[in-house]
């Protein structure tokens, strides 16, 4: 029986990172729950054993039911009638499997019925689910909204809603509107306060993933007459209240099992979550950061399945009397796919660990005030998480698209037919670099950390870490890349031309990503003494060197005056 966790030894490696000790200790408050809950861990090893066992359940469900259903779900898709969505039969079976396996509300505290898992093993589950069915990862991964409800809702709201999520009810985040996509400040959905303190929502939302969810988090305009983000608040809409109907579901290129809905709100009764006016500027930003990490995990899952399908086909397909994997051109494609996959995964878990650490401190701060040292650490990890999240979302999603492209290329003409999984993978991959903020918007979020030096600081940290004898040559190459990167950053910065800086931002961010991922691969390969990561580190460093050379050449060639060539 296929198990997508146990058949992928790299996952276990990433779970063993030394920072996990600190993450688990913070998350479990030194294992205080063990007295109250019979499923709470007794100590660090017990907690790690729990993650391992639960991921094994995830791996089994994904390797059997969810992967087996993926093709049918892509074909059948959801349907809508009388304002309600019906999932494809395979999707229903997948959700039922996840509920029975108790895989909903994984990161929620035990007092609400959750498993109290840190983000890292939860994100690992998302990585595994996405490999089985990328579109289903959306429905399952929307449990992440509970995190925002937990962070900003009142205790009473938490008690009412979070246990329902843990029991398997689904969620949605209703943000986008016809005229408010990337620019969420333009959200128009109207929220009107009632004398009893509840609110009525009126208007239209578009492109809402799982829009017929049981529990919605809704961004709406609560302040009459305002036009910007400061007039927006976040609301909780409970489907049991009624008032929101699905007008249509989109016919999409990929992730076809995940219903993307147009919603009509007609006096839909809702309740305020958190404080008025903080909807966009605080809560949705937090929601989006969590969702971006989720998309990075989804992207890594896509890269994984793309690589596996490509490798299997290349071993099987014979031309000119031998398997095509024997040809250098194919070998290069596969090695580069694997390097991109491994690099993406290193960055994903590096990011999830930083998110874990700052969120754990943030949560402790809800119970007691932090010591000055703890506050300092929280700020540091918060900054690192802020820097790594857009980098991870932006680059892993681009890589998974490249891997999906190469997966079809390896399949040749057969890959262009509907007969192989690779065509679905290719279609499913495409959305990852668009939703939850396009790659271009990830660059906007990341460029700050190029100029404030967060990435440089990370690189300096990695340079101090142990790197194996076998990777010393690569280490020297990467040190050279750091110098080139710093030079390029300086050159762009010194122009003092904000238009030019925006124009070059993508190039600088990609260079930062090349170097950060090179270091992560080298240090992880060393730490885990992994042959396959060492191989990928070597291939990736070559790729990074070529990429950095390309970007530096572009920056050196195209001066501010040349932007006119691009109409900029």
């Amino acid at each position, binding site marked *: 029986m296929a198990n997508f966790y146990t058949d992928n030894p790299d996952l276990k490696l990433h779970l063993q990172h030394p920072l996990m000790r600190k993450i688990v200790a913070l998350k479990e408050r030194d294992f205080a729950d063990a007295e109250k809950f019979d*499923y709470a861990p007794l100590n660090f090893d017990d907690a790690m054993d729990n993650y391992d066992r639960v991921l094994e359940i995830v791996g089994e469900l994904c390797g059997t039911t969810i992967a087996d259903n993926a093709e049918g779900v892509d074909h059948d898709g959801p349907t809508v009638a009388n304002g309600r969505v019906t999932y494809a039969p395979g999707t229903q079976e997948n959700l039922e499997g996840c509920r*029975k*396996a*108790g895989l909903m509300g994984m990161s929620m505290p035990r007092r609400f019925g959750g498993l109290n898992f840190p983000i890292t093993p939860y994100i690992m589950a998302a990585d595994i689910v996405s490999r089985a069915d990328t579109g289903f990862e959306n429905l399952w991964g929307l449990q992440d909204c509970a995190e925002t409800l937990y962070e900003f809702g009142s205790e009473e709201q938490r008690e009412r809603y979070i246990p329902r999520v843990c029991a398997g009810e689904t969620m949605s985040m209703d943000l986008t509107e016809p005229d408010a996509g990337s620019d969420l400040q333009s959200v128009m959905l109207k929220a009107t306060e009632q004398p009893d303190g509840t609110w009525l929502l009126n208007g239209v939302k578009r492109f809402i993933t799982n829009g017929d969810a049981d529990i919605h988090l809704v961004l709406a305009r609560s302040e009459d007459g305002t036009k910007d983000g400061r007039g927006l608040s976040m609301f909780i809409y409970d489907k049991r209240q009624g008032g929101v109907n699905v007008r249509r579901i989109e016919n999409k290129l990929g992730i076809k099992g995940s219903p993307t809905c147009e919603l009509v709100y007609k006096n839909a009764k809702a309740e305020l979550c958190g404080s008025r006016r903080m909807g966009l500027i605080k809560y949705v930003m937090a929601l989006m950061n969590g969702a971006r990490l989720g998309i990075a995990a989804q992207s890594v899952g896509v890269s994984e399945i793309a690589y596996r399908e490509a490798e299997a086909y290349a071993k099987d397909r014979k031309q000119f009397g031998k398997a095509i994997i024997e040809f250098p051109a194919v070998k290069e494609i596969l090695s580069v796919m694997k390097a991109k996959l491994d690099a993406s995964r290193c960055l994903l878990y590096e990011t999830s660990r930083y998110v874990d650490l700052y969120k754990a401190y943030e949560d402790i701060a809800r119970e007691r005030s932090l010591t000055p040292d703890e506050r300092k650490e929280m700020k540091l990890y918060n900054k690192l998480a802020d820097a790594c999240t857009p980098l991870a979302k932006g680059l892993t999603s681009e890589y998974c698209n490249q891997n999906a492209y190469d997966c079809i290329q390896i399949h040749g003409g057969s890959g262009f037919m509907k007969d192989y999984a690779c065509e679905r993978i290719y279609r499913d991959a495409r959305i990852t670099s668009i939703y939850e903020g396009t790659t271009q918007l990830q660059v906007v979020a990341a460029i700050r950390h190029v100029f404030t030096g967060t990435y440089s600081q990370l690189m300096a940290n990695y340079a101090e870490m142990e790197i194996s004898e076998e990777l010393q040559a690569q280490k020297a190459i990467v040190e050279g890349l750091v110098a080139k990167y710093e030079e390029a950053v300086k050159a762009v910065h010194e122009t003092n031309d904000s238009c030019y800086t925006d124009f070059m931002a993508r190039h600088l961010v990609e260079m930062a990503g090349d170097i950060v991922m090179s270091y992560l691969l080298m240090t992880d390969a060393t730490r885990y003494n992994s042959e396959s990561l060492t191989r990928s580190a070597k291939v990736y460093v070559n790729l990074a060197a070529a990429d950095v050379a390309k970007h530096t050449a572009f920056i050196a060639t195209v001066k501010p005056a040349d932007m006119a060539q691009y109409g900029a």
Partner: protein
Amino acid sequence: MSLNIVVLAKQVPDTRNVGKDAMKEDGTINRAALPAIFNPEDLNALEQALRLKDANPGSTVTILTMGLPRAAEVIREAMFRGADTGIVLTDRALGGADTLATSYSLAQAIKKMDKVDIVLCGRQAIDGDTAQVGPQVAEKLGMPQVTYAEEILSIADGKATIRRRIESGVETVKAPMPLVVTVNGSAPDCRPRNAKRVMQFKYAVSPSEKEKLSDELKALVDKRPGLNLQEWSAAFVEADPEQIGMPGSPTKVKAIENVVFTAKENLVLENNDEQIENLVKTLIANHTIG
């Protein structure tokens, strides 16, 4: 109505994943090379038991397994999926049992339990493929039996309505309780392990396993009654020594042959009656058929 449900489960070598080293030189099974698993059709039976429990609040599902002490593994596996507790029937005297001795021993154990409403088990185990144990248990307990079951449709007025798979289709039967039901592999798959239950019951141990735990874990097991599985001996279930283990097993294995396909050459026939007839004659002559 709450029910006392017993599921008979067997830990078996995974004969579906037989590698080159599955057999030893002497033709016996190399157990070390085959992972021990929950007999697949017993999982189908467990799912039926758990559905009965879901539909009849207050019901309990108890796993009964006979085997080596390590067979407690199947009890934990069942508990991860929803079973309440389990008993390992283990004793040196029970070793070497054939289906007759096994069913006698299991029946003795079931007699030792409080009121049992329904006994479920898989149609057959993948190591022996006899399909005899379930029916023999029913005979020894004097209970009606429904074999090849696919779904227990309802329980009402002391009767179970069951759909069973037969050669040419399905048939629905009604039987009085208590009864024994053997469940077919075509019945719904067992539900997955549940994350919380895995964390809750991973330290559930039989007394002999408990001995090997650290002091900290022993204390934990003492504190939580649900983590204590039972181990029953032949004497405890008042089994007649003549009817268990080797002495109670009339089945004797004469020889085990390791069949290895050695033919290497292919034979290509023309599509005509004459050539096919010649082939059949050859096969009869060399005793391949007939």
